[in-house]
């Protein structure tokens, strides 16, 4: 009887079934229209297309990915196609308004702003993903431990995490900068550590939901140890939440780095950097040199928006 339905997963009608066959074709929609019926139909077949294909159906994902791709290209090849050397000072041409020669104008030192915006993508796109990956790894480990072990450990670590979160981000970052110094590695570690508790908190909540599922005692009854239960049983189920958290935090990391640079604790001049450029140029705003601040700010805004659009699409797809 098993042979009678060669392509079970996709068979729409159980027609080729011998009426007395005990097992009929799979119903991939779950065949469920019950008490919550209507809603179930609305969401039916969620397992049918892979999640990646669902992601590719979302216009917001394309917009976000497109913008992000643009900045990645700038970061990788920016020094090749930037019209000027971003560090070259032309003091005679300082503070020129946008023109055909300098699309984004020049800064007080006469450096081409377009070139600085393009090449400024490099450090930010190296530091923020690395920092977010660091935060995700640490935060997931911490959240998994808190959610799984629970009890006193969770209570104590939870309080520490909350205390940490209660201090304004900038102050925490300052303390780390003082302790670690603001090299590129230092900044990466700082942002990673600052975001760790946020991710830990989200993962902990997801783990607690999973821990209440019956598959956890079922694993215990098979003699599985805590490590296996945590990493092989629970972790795979919280990975979607981790992925969403990663993309969301990436957006915030861009902000965080720009803020640190703006405050002078991030990427050091003269390396082109959007946050640092805003800091160096905003004094010119009252004098009418708006382009010196606007274009780096737009760069930050577009990158953050791109990441948030992607995060949003990922979240929507995983939630459906």
């Amino acid at each position, binding site marked *: 009887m098993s042979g009678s339905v060669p392509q079970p997963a996709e068979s729409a*009608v159980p*027609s080729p079934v011998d*009426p007395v066959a005990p097992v*009929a074709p799979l119903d991939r929609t779950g065949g469920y229209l019950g008490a919550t*019926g209507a809603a179930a*139909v609305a969401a039916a077949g969620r397992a049918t297309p892979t999640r990646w294909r669902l992601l590719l159906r979302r216009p917001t994902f394309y917009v976000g990915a497109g913008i992000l791709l643009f900045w990645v290209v700038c970061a990788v090849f920016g020094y090749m196609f930037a019209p000027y050397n971003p560090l070259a000072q032309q003091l005679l041409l300082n503070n020129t308004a946008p023109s055909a020669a300098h699309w984004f104008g020049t800064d007080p030192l006469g450096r081409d702003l377009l070139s600085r915006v393009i090449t400024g993508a490099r450090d930010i796109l190296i530091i923020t993903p690395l920092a977010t990956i660091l935060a995700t790894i640490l935060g997931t480990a911490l959240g998994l431990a808190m959610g799984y072990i629970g009890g006193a450990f969770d209570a104590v670590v939870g309080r520490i995490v909350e205390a940490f979160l209660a201090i304004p981000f900038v102050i925490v970052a300052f303390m780390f900068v003082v302790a670690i110094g603001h090299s590129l590695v230092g900044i990466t570690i700082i942002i990673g550590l600052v975001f760790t508790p946020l991710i830990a908190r989200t993962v902990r909540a997801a783990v607690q939901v999973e821990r209440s599922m019956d598959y956890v005692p079922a694993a215990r009854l098979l*003699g599985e140890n805590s490590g296996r239960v945590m990493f092989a049983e629970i972790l795979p189920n919280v990975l979607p939440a981790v992925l969403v958290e990663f993309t969301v935090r990436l957006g915030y990391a861009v902000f965080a780095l720009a803020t640190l640079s703006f405050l002078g604790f991030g990427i050091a001049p003269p390396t082109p950097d959007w946050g640092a450029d805003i800091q160096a140029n905003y004094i010119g705003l009252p004098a009418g040199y708006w382009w010196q601040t606007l274009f780096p700010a737009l760069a930050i805004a577009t990158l953050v928006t791109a990441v948030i659009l992607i995060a949003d699409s990922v979240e929507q797809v995983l939630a459906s």
Partner: protein
Amino acid sequence: MTADLGVTAPPPADQAPALSVSHMDVTYRVRGQDRLALRDVSFLISRGESYGLVGESGSGKSTAALALVRYLPSNGRVSGGTISIDGLDPLSMGTSALRDLRARTVSMVYQEPGRALNPSMRVGRQIAEVFEIAGQSSGDAQQSAEQMLRKVQISDPGRVMLRYPHELSGGMAQRAVIAMALARSPSLLILDEPTTALDATVEAEVLDLVAALRQEFDTSVLFISHNLAVIAKMCDRVGVLYAGELVEEGPARAVFENPRHPYTVGLLRCIPRRGQRKDTDRLDSIPGFLPTPGVTVTGCIFAPRCGLARDRCRQEHPPFFAVDEVRTSRCFFHEQAPDLPRATPVSVAAPAADGTGGTAGPLVDVERLSKTFAGGVQALAGVDVSIQQGETLGLVGESGSGKTTLARVLLGLTAPDQGSVVTLHGKPLNPDVRRRPREILRALQIVFQNPDSALNRRHTVRALISRPLSRLAGLSGAALRDRLEELIASVRLEDRHLPLRPSQLSGGLKQRVAIARAFGAGPEVVVCDEPTSALDVSVQAAILNLLADLQRKEQATYLFISHDLGLVRYLSDRIVVLYLGRVMEVGPSETVFDGPHHPYTEALFSAVPSLDLQRPDRIRLTGEIPSAADPPSGCVFHTRCPRRLPTGICESTEPPLHEDEPGHQIRCHIPLTELRELQRSPSVSSPHSESG
């Protein structure tokens, strides 16, 4: 394709019927494609009538209810036919007229009372609001609300009105919802699985209440349920839905006693009836699966699963045939429906030689088992239970009686209080599963209630079933593969299921995977914790058969927990009745069922609606289960016991568990002989003796 049917049961001459639906189609748009969820559904509810829609999940019964008041989700619409509620047509209404219809003419009560109430609003305020919308002043509305709560038999309405919904028990909340629904004196009340989330005794009360209020308010009722017995009890007429089509309709009693559509016949055979025992009978099941929603079927929609199907059934869509003046069936061969061939053999080979006798001592012995949770909640209080080798011990009781806690203690998932003794083969078990040796883990396994929760959705079926084989049975390589093959064959899964994940399987298949996992390493005791309560009736029958077959084949012992007494009776050899963490009655299955019983057992039996209609409702419990944190003095059941003695002994002294018949123990001050007299007095049910 549309079969023209003379709509059944002519309406009373003068008025428009409470509800008339004719040729209704409902379509959901799913990813750009229209899926027909209901097809050509017609029925009619006269004034004051109670009409039941019965069907399994996926039949479209909830969709029908939502469609009537146009509550379908945004991707659903009524794509054909007409609806008339009290002479009004909801399909042509504008927003305000529709709101008015929902406010005045139709009321709905859903399964989850908690979701129908606004959690941030006091109960009294919510009910009063309904009256205020109807134009009463706020003072009058308060009074009306209080009166309404009294009508739904809430004993202290003044206090209940001041509470928030989360402070009410499930039964109480459902009463409040019913009060709100009836506050509008609707001409049609739609009840969608209103008691499915409630305990048996509470369900019985709510059903009685609905029946009484129906008389009082002269409301027509559309009652939707998957539970055939509830429908049989509550409804005058019934329509059986299958895959979005009404397949049979008629007076409830006639339909259930003499079904004339193969689907109805099959469904009724899936339910264990009196006299059926696992030793001798197998339940019938309906082969195959519900068609995928939205699939277009040329012939009869049930033909692929029907044992009577012929060529005509597959080519031609059957219209409604009149079985008699008041009954219709959508089957070409409705005369032959009662002769539907069984999909599973009726009986099993002669019972295996009685393996229970002769063994030295019980397999599992539980003594003085207590479990007190934080906050003083005593889930179990001095429970003594033993499980014999090879038997099925049925564990019965309402929620909060300690059934699941007992199972969890046995499995080592919950540590009991000091002084409790749990032994396997006479050797004490470590209270913590993490400290139990592999042989003990192998010996004790469980099938959980909900396979969605019990199976890790990230693992494949192969991984799920292989794990116990490698972990506990120590198999690997070819030996593991062979055992895996054998296992999936014995739970009737197929090779093609192995690479799939649980989300790709139907509920019944998922539960088979869970059963295969439990049996993987050759357990001695398998705890079955409501293993079929998340499943449909037809799937349930197959799972019960499977459990019975596996028990015989693998020589397993079961601890079977269920709230469904019919299932317990079918599968159990002995029964333990728990109430508030105490054993109220223990005995061989048939003795406990035939009585005399403990008054609590008696109440449980009376509460559960049954298709065997001859059984009278003897006694009713009132009120809720008391809190386990503060159990009543004396006999813990005295607060609800309808047979409480006037002497006051029940309030002061806890009765011992005494054995008046061999193997049958009852915890009651009333002697067995007297219980027998008391329980015999009302109209005696037919003796219906069954000899094993």
